[in-house]
């Protein structure tokens, strides 16, 4: 169909691609032998993963005592990492669901990889609540299943249990959404393959044919799943923030937490998408599909959400002062000028000040600046969680129980291990699945391909010229 294209819209697919070019370009990475870079990256990732598994086994064998938590600081790197990874997992569903409802076409270039990232990040996140309880073998106590303990049920009034439900639902729905979108693209790979490879993709593609009726149902399913995933993605980090906000610890007990956490999650998620996309588009040669236009759009989201996070930080400070509540005031004074002042400083610099650079178009469109910024934001958002958790706990009501916390090698090892899990999965994903949604990119070609936009531009110019002549 020849869609009406505004000539001021920038193309989202460059290089004058035909439908067949799109298939070739996006299938190519999984059809050639892995490059040396890939093999090297994979070895590094698996090594990290191995070290992570070792650290986890160490924790299980020797107990939580192998971490540096103490009676004052009961949550340290474990929950910091948990919240950080869950936050990163938010961009994928935002891109695929919310931007689908908003009909943002640039979503098609990045949604597949972003959703994959979501799933892997949630796996990393889910690891921490699992091991931080110490006795992993009784973890099934988390689940409200009929049991021989009374039957004793879980506490449905506890935000920690809500969190379990939220994370599991989020993981399941993201996985279903992602896989449903992958099925037609697996069919494309299937029809190009032969032998064992064909059998493999035949299994993964679930017998997809591309029949009109199937596409009709596919579209309607995607739309409803997007509609369901949109409130879901907002609810998940809201519930994560409840873990803190419903407790009576000064510095945690604030009503601003849900929106502030959600904005922060989208902020960090987009930063991670940028980090991955900038490398992926370069290594897999997908610059025609993940263009500067895509990068700029995501930088705008980073600027917006980063500023929202900044406003939230300042609001917290203001409310602490305005409340006249001395414990609250101390908690925030301690955050900024206490023993962990450096973490607060890192958070403020990385999250609030540095994204302001994206007010300039030149910076939004610079790959180097974007890459550096995406790392900054990732670091800043990690520190945000560390500041909220460790600094707040380190200085509680009784000065006699004040404490300080640094991680042991085991805690650092588990954190590095999650990077191992994340990148091992991501690297395998780039080998097995098309990193860009083939069918979706094809469906926007005629409205966003550069050759079509140029064509429309010419018509538009001609029409203007004719009008000028008439007058």
């Amino acid at each position: 169909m020849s869609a009406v294209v505004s000539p001021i819209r920038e193309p989202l697919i460059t290089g004058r691609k035909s439908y067949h070019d799109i298939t070739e370009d996006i299938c190519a990475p999984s059809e050639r032998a892995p490059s040396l870079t890939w093999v090297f990256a994979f070895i590094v990732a698996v090594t990290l993963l191995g070290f992570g598994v070792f650290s986890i086994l160490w924790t299980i064998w020797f107990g939580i005592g192998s971490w540096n938590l103490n009676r004052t600081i009961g949550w340290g790197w474990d929950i910091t990492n948990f919240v950080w990874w869950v936050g990163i997992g938010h961009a994928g569903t935002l891109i695929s669901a919310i931007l689908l409802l908003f009909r943002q076409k640039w979503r098609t270039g990045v949604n597949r990889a972003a959703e994959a990232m979501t799933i892997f990040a949630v796996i990393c996140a889910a690891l921490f609540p699992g091991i931080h309880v110490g006795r992993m073998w009784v973890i099934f106590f988390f689940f409200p299943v009929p049991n021989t303990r009374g039957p004793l049920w879980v506490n449905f009034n506890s935000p920690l249990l809500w969190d379990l439900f939220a994370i599991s639902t989020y993981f399941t729905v993201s996985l279903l959404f992602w896989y449903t979108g992958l099925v037609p693209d697996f069919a494309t790979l299937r029809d190009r393959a032969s032998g064992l490879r064909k059998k493999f993709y035949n299994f993964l593609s679930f017998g997809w044919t591309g029949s009109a009726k199937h596409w009709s149902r596919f579209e309607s399913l995607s739309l409803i799943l997007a509609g369901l995933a949109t409130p879901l993605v907002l609810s998940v980090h809201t519930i994560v923030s409840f873990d803190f906000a419903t407790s009576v610890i000064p510095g945690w007990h604030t009503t601003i937490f849900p929106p502030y956490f959600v904005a922060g999650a989208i902020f960090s998620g987009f930063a991670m998408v940028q980090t991955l996309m900038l490398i992926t588009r370069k290594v897999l040669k997908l610059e025609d599909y993940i263009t500067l236009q895509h990068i700029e759009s995501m930088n705008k989201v980073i600027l917006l959400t980063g500023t929202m996070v900044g406003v939230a930080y300042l609001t917290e400070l203001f409310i602490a002062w305005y409340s006249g509540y001395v414990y609250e005031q101390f908690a925030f004074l301690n955050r900024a000028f206490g023993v962990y002042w450096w973490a607060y400083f890192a958070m403020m610099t990385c999250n609030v000040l540095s994204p302001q650079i994206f007010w300039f178009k030149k910076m939004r469109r610079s790959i180097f600046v974007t890459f550096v910024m995406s790392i900054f934001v990732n670091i800043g958002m990690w520190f945000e969680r560390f500041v909220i958790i460790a600094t707040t706990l380190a200085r509680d009501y009784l000065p006699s129980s004040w404490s300080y916390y640094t991680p042991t090698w085991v805690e650092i090892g588990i954190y590095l291990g999650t990077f191992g899990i994340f990148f091992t999965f991501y690297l395998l994903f780039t080998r097995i699945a098309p990193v860009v949604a083939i069918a979706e990119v094809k469906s926007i070609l005629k409205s966003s391909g550069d050759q079509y936009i140029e064509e429309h531009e010419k018509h538009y110019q001609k029409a203007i010229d004719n009008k000028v002549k008439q007058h």
Partner: protein
Amino acid sequence: METTNKSILFGLYNDEEIVLQALKEAKGQHLDVYDVVSPFPIHGLDPLLGIEESRLHIAGFCFGLVGTLTAFLGMSWIFTKDWPMIFGGKPYWSVPAFIPITFELTVLFASIGMVITYYAINGMGPGVTNPVLHDRLTDDKFAIAFDAGNASEDEINKFKAFLENTGADEIQMKTI
């Protein structure tokens, strides 16, 4: 598409706009189109083929409702009948605290139920192999297919003529 030894006559097209034009033509000629196969969803195709809007959302609503009831009634029963317990001096039946889990289970049930329904009615699933008309149909070709099994010689010739006249690149007969 189920495997029932059907003879399918189909033409391959290079562009979705030609397909849409051809379908309008087919409607004019009262030809009974068996299926249209494409590498991506073609907008404006459904009304031409007489495909009604999917009722998946109704299924989704029903599954969601089951989730809502499971969560809400389940928690209510557990905390008021099976094992009543006081948490923080609040009533046994503390409805606001049930909202998050009720919401999550609604979404979970609706999503899982709908996805399973979708694959079931499409005749798809892990390990299912459906007949493929042509390898390029998931790449850059579009097909208009006619059921040639029950058609007379006359009708088949009519289909062929139609495919030729509307710009099909290639015409094939395939038994699936």
